[in-house]
């Protein structure tokens, strides 16, 4: 009996000391209100906590719409967690502002990750994503056949003339309310994410990426002016609507209102459910090659974390293919690695969404990698909305470039 008591006491002590040895890591995530995402991230955390005895991750989730403001407030109050997630294009701003520290993980493990999933700022890795998103020109094979259009590929995308001829043909057919759904009902980050690749495909950009110190020439040069005129023409000539009912964005393509829809892979399964002959075409080449946006939510370590090695250990743990595949199955985005893609029916070779992997790998361009992007995105959004609604293209782009330049100057060049 005595021996039994001793053994029981020892066992309890061992258990208690093991439990005490786990250092708690706090983590913030943007998925509150999204049942699927929360379930997935909680599974990763549960597995990680059980896999070792050094660290224990505790999650606080935030609604996505309020997440960035919460992080900024947390940073001001000196109350950031150890691990946080960050929307890819915002990462340079948070790194520059001192909210994040470089992420020290075994980089051989991310060698085969899609380029858009790696958050690199100032030559250092700060964040890494488990998935990426991609945009395609969604239409139906029957539409292509009916209009007598060639099916473009990523290696032979439509030229600008072919794209406009396709829109003309759709318009002439008179079968659809508008030839093209650009998703104008979505505001905010959709504009720079979805539309700046058109500008880049013309040869312009939101900011001059060679220095990141000016938008002059990039946002208001000849290529940008050509883009602006083309963009305005889409609305002026009745190819697309400048203002759109959100319901039409969600269900307009499925309801047969649009011949083509510029939309993300997160909406692809819905389109396939509506029309089994849905095809996802690559972005058109408007002169400087086909381009789409890249970079979605990524994980990083806060600058104030006292346990960066623990935080990095968790992030490295989460990069396993099985989690990449689970997230992809759950939320429909592209797994970060080819091997994880092969584990997902939608994205494996021959899968209905596999073209998105190719588009992401071959045509994706991350948004400007600069702390000033958070301001530049808003300026760009306003300029494009104004041009769509008929303002003078040159004057609008000049004003946008001036506003971006003033912000860069005010912030001392943002460390570039």
């Amino acid at each position, binding site marked *: 009996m005595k021996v039994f008591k001793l053994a029981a006491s020892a066992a309890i002590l061992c258990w208690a000391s093991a439990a005490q040895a786990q250092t708690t890591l706090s983590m913030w995530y943007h998925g509150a209100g999204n049942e699927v995402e929360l379930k997935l991230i909680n599974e990763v955390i549960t597995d990680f906590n059980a896999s070792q005895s050094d660290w224990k991750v505790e999650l606080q989730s935030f609604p996505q719409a309020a997440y960035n403001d919460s992080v900024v*407030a947390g940073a001001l109050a000196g109350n950031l967690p150890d691990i946080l997630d960050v929307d890819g294009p915002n990462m340079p701003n948070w790194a520059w502002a001192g909210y994040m520290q470089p992420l020290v993980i075994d980089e051989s493990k991310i060698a085969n990750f899609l380029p858009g999933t790696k958050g690199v700022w100032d030559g250092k890795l700060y964040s890494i994503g488990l998935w990426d998103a991609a945009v395609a020109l969604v239409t139906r094979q029957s539409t292509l056949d009916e209009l007598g259009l060639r099916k473009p590929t990523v290696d032979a995308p439509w030229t600008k003339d072919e794209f406009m001829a396709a829109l003309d043909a759709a318009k002439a057919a008179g079968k659809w309310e508008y030839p093209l759904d650009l998703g104008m009902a979505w505001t905010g980050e959709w504009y720079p994410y979805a539309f700046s690749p058109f500008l880049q495909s013309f040869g312009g950009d939101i900011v001059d990426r060679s220095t990141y110190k000016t938008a002059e020439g990039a946002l208001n040069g000849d290529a940008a002016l050509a883009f602006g005129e083309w963009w305005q023409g889409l609305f002026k000539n009745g190819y697309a609507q400048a203002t759109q009912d959100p319901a039409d964005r969600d269900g307009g393509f499925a309801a047969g209102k649009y011949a083509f829809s510029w939309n993300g892979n997160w909406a692809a399964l819905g389109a396939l459910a509506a029309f089994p002959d849905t095809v996802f075409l690559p972005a058109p080449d408007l002169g400087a090659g086909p381009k789409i946006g890249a970079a979605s939510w990524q994980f990083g370590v806060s600058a104030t974390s006292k346990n960066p090695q623990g935080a990095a250990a968790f992030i490295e743990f989460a990069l396993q293919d099985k989690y990449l595949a689970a997230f992809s199955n759950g939320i429909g985005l592209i797994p970060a690695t080819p091997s994880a893609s092969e584990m997902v029916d939608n994205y494996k070779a021959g899968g209905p969404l596999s073209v998105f992997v190719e588009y992401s790998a071959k045509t994706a361009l991350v948004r400007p990698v600069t702390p000033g992007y958070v301001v530049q995105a808003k300026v760009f959004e306003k300029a494009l909305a104004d041009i769509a609604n008929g303002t003078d293209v040159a004057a609008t782009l000049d004003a946008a470039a001036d506003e971006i330049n003033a912000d860069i100057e005010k912030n001392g060049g943002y460390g570039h």
Partner: protein
Amino acid sequence: MALISADNRGLRLATRYAVLGLIAVIFVFPLVFMVMSSLKPDQQLLQDSGNLRAFLPVGDISLNNYTAAFQRAPVATFVFNSVLVTGVTVLLSLLICSAAGFAFVFVNWKGRGVLLSILLATLILPFETIAIPMLLMVAHLPWIGTEGITWGWLNSYHVQIIPFIADGLTVFLFVQYFKDLPGELIEAARVEGASWGQIYRRIVMPLSGPILATAAILKFLVMYNQYLWPLMVTQEEGYRPVMVGLQYFFQLNVAWGEVMAYLSLITVPVLAFYLYLQKAFIASIASTGVKG
């Protein structure tokens, strides 16, 4: 002649009721739209939104959006938090601000005019201008609780309550109301030897029902609708109020039926509180000219 006069009176009455009825409809329709929409699936909700069906319980009616809202977010926690924070703040605010108003009006002390002016000047400061300094301050303040002394008020109820107990507008409302109370009552009580505390408790407060109701309703609305401050100071879900909780429903594809169900649920406490106090509120507006 008397007949014509009666007819005129009837016409005037009918016109008045027609105008009031129209105004009532304008004010009630958004609420009806909200509740009716909360009972419909998204597709029907969007289809109905362009016509009168939006205000009628027609089509595929169910409570599915309410069930989904409870699954998406801890609605009961958010409502409890908001009611608790709002209720405590309103009670403490009525106590502190009425006492301050009493001191400004009835007690003769040096500098009260200047201090009242400074207090009123705070009314022109938007909260957004002081939010960040307040955040920096509360993040480092001490607090004595069950765990002893801790530093920083973040993620707590008191960080949502204490900064909002006293405010210039509520004090001003009490000052204005107290100025209209008969001064003879106070002087008589002083002559009889009553202390300031007794006068406040036994004479002034019992006469202040309308202004207490007005101040309570105005404070209730401000507190219940708080968004920016709780967003900044509550990183833990367990302390979040209803307005922060609303953001849980704005995912990439918004489920509008769930949004309407959530809004219907969180509107109930506000309506109940207003209906409970509306008589006194209207009496106060009529007597002081205060507009809500």
